[in-house]
């Protein structure tokens, strides 16, 4: 497969070519090109055996087959929707997949336009005028939002308020990101799944810099007091940050209409299959914070022929120009995932997107109702509207129920001693009957 027997199969050199090139350089050997002092030279071996492509594909296929074949009713921030075939086929075109960041816009107009369109879709969905072309995931998006609040804050305070119900991972990232600031993260309580407005009112004060709420919440409930939360934050000169995802945004209250200053969340709910938590952080905000936005922005400009052209812009916010005064250290983001999400969203169109989101409400309602009929299960636990997922009470210990369900081929979350959580979309909807049957056995 390659012209040199040993070595990298992806280096094209024949030994004759190598020799000729060394000759042109004027050295005798490849070794002579390395300027490494003996005391730090590595003379050992990694002990990694090279495998042929065929052998390796077989090996990895067998390896991944060690994962059990479960039907997942899992969500809590990482969602599976059906990804249309066109997303794979178009995103795998090598002109997209194997390109670098668009530092030479004249030859990367295609990707820049895709990212501009992605930003535009988020602007439409959030109602906010600025969306960047991605954060790593929802957690880092939230964390960057808190840091943005810190940079623009009008108060002397330092408290970042987050919901009691918040993925530990998300809170963990937030805490690490504010570790270098004087911000401190505190929780506010929830009431029956949603924000406890009274308790929050008591907590928000002069010291509050940032109030974060999610819609839907991590427990799948649809928030009812967003406007009030936004007003509370603004009355105290704090920023109101709303967490959501790209599907939910197409149906639920528009963030701009409830006063959100920043919207963060998962855009990877479109475009990606379950991928062990790999995400796509959406980040949108108001015009006034434009120069404080972390990450990359694509803008419109003109070329020398006065034709419309796209380019990365406002790069003076970024680390490669501004160094330690940058808005963030992020450079490589999730551009290709954004491309996939954009193609998926475009495939759905506004009708498809709203239909999909409405199904998320209906399916969750259906599954909860079905489970509620199972003896030993009450669902949903929270008397709220739900989106995609909900918490159910089990009379048996939740961990045991989940383990028994796994033996039956289903994965669910355990979120309390007697609480499991289930997420349903079009990809597992047709397994509801078998899940309910299994639940009747194990609950």
């Amino acid at each position: 497969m390659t012209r040199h027997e040993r070595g990298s199969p992806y280096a094209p050199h024949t030994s004759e070519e190598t020799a000729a090139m060394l000759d042109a350089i004027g050295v005798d050997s490849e070794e002579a090109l390395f300027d490494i002092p003996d005391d730090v030279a590595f003379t050992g071996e990694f002990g990694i055996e090279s495998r042929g492509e065929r052998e390796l594909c077989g090996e990895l296929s067998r390896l991944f087959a060690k994962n059990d074949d479960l039907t997942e009713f899992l969500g809590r921030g990482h969602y599976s929707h059906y990804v249309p075939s066109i997303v794979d086929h178009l995103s795998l075109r090598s002109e997209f997949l194997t390109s670098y960041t668009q530092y030479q816009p004249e030859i990367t107009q295609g990707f820049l336009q895709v990212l501009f369109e992605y930003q535009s879709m988020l602007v439409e969905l959030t109602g906010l005028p600025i969306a960047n072309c991605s954060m790593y995931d929802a957690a880092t998006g939230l964390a960057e939002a808190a840091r943005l609040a810190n940079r623009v804050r009008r108060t002397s305070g330092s408290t970042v308020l987050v919901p009691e119900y918040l993925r530990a991972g998300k809170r963990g990232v937030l805490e690490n990101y504010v570790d270098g600031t004087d911000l401190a993260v505190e929780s506010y309580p929830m009431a029956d799944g949603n924000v406890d407005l009274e308790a929050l009112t008591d907590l928000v004060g002069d010291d509050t810099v940032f109030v974060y709420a999610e819609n839907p919440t991590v427990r799948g409930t649809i928030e009812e007091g967003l406007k009030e939360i936004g007003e509370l934050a603004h009355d105290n000169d704090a920023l109101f940050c709303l967490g959501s995802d790209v599907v939910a945004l197409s149906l639920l209250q528009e963030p701009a209409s409830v006063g959100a200053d920043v919207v963060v969340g998962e855009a990877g709910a479109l475009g990606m299959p379950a991928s062990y938590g790999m995400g796509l952080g959406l980040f949108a905000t108001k015009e006034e914070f434009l120069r404080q936005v972390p990450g990359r922005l694509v803008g419109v400009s003109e070329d020398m022929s006065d034709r419309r052209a796209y380019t990365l812009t406002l790069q003076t916010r970024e680390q490669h120009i501004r160094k330690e005064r940058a808005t963030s250290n992020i450079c490589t983001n999730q551009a290709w995932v954004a491309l996939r999400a954009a193609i998926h969203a475009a495939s759905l169109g506004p009708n498809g997107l709203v239909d999909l989101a409405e199904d998320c409400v209906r399916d969750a309602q259906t599954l909860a109702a079905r489970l509620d009929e199972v003896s030993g299960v009450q669902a949903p636990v929270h008397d709220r509207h739900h989106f995609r997922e909900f918490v159910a009470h089990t009379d048996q210990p939740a961990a045991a129920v989940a383990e028994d369900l796994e033996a039956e081929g289903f994965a669910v979350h355990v979120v309390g001693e007697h609480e499991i959580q289930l997420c349903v979309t079009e990809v597992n909807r047709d397994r509801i009957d078998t899940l309910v049957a299994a639940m009747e056995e194990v609950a």
Partner: protein
Amino acid sequence: EYEPLLSEKDSTAVDVGGDDSPLPDDLTRDSVELPELSEPELARHYTRLSQMNYGVETGPYPLGSCTMKYNPKFTEDVAADPNAAVHPDRSERSTQGTLKMLYNLQDYLGRIGGMDAVTLQPPAGAAGEFTGILVAKAYHEANGNDRSEVVIPASAHGTNFATAAMAGYDVVELPSGEDGRVDLDALEAAVSEDTAALMLTNPNTVGLFERDITEIAEMVHDVGGLLYYDGANLNALLGRARPGDMGFDIMHYNVHKTFATPHGGGGPGAGPVGVVDELAEFLPSPQVRRNDGGFELFDPERSIGKVHGFYGNWLVLVKAYAYIARLGDEGLADASAKAVLNANYLGSQIEYDIPYGPYHHEFAATAGDQDAADVAKRMLDYGVHPPTTKWPEMVPEAMLTEPTEVENRETLDDLAAAFNAAHGEDDDTLANAPNKTAARRIDQVGAARNPRLSWHALDDD
């Protein structure tokens, strides 16, 4: 040539809520307005856009420090294995395949870098840096030893500075020595009991090996600081030197440059971080380890916690693993050898001066009296991707060039020809380039002065 925006092809407003809605109207938005197009229309749209984009299968991509090398196709197939498409909240029991791959990758990376423990969680190189610096910070704090400064060479990647600042450190910038390497006297002056870490890449950003690395390490360690290795240039050294052996305590790996994962027009990346034994207990949660007959997750004892909501960019990690396993010891060493060979060959064929050497996988030529950015634009007309320009600043009008090991001699000659053609051209020609590309020179200043960042903003024009 011009491909309209999706919104110029269609814009359909859909009312949301109402009688058929599963939600009361006060919980829904009013409407959504987006393009509604058929699949054939979308296929053409994105196909045309792809044709207006340069990838590494279009031609060489010698963007110094960034660069692109060929991304083996089979790694995409492997990453698309449906058995690998699992949710992160699955039980460990039911994801033994996933955990085993992660364990193996931790192990491989440790061996390659000479590190004792590795986290795969950081979703990009910059996130890896941040993780590493947080680990350093946690270590110092655990020793009751709060420190306030991070020392960084002036020629370092911008992320190093931004990362240190994000973690709350003051940055102490280290001027380059005359030979382009760390100036030991300047380092002596810079380090102190306040030094949390020195961040260094080796070979450095003009391709030079820091020959005094052992002394540098000693100087930092002597004041109680840690040595952080920016893995951007590890692709020059595979099998010939390891950061761990040079005295580095922490490092991140650049998977796209070193392990050929696709860069996808700006990500996703991955920034695994390796540390020496002493620091392993501070790594992010969770790590993967063996247990009886299988693999499990665990939280390091004094873990810094999370740097990604879940486990990082899984798909990228799979591709990196597949690449390493495909190449093995000999392939990895050869990849570095050929990367260095190609850089030196290309350097020998161009008419621009290269002030610093001996360089390894990349070199910083100077455009001299010409404007490096203009030279780059002109190279577009010659059908190749140009080098990184105007950085690092220690080389005036720098053109940082890194061809990688995947280019053959003919392509390197084409690149040299493009450099040399531009070398003979006048400023006016350069300033008006490119002429043969889909878009001509783009007004960057205008874009920033009048930001139009969505198609909604265009409606206002």
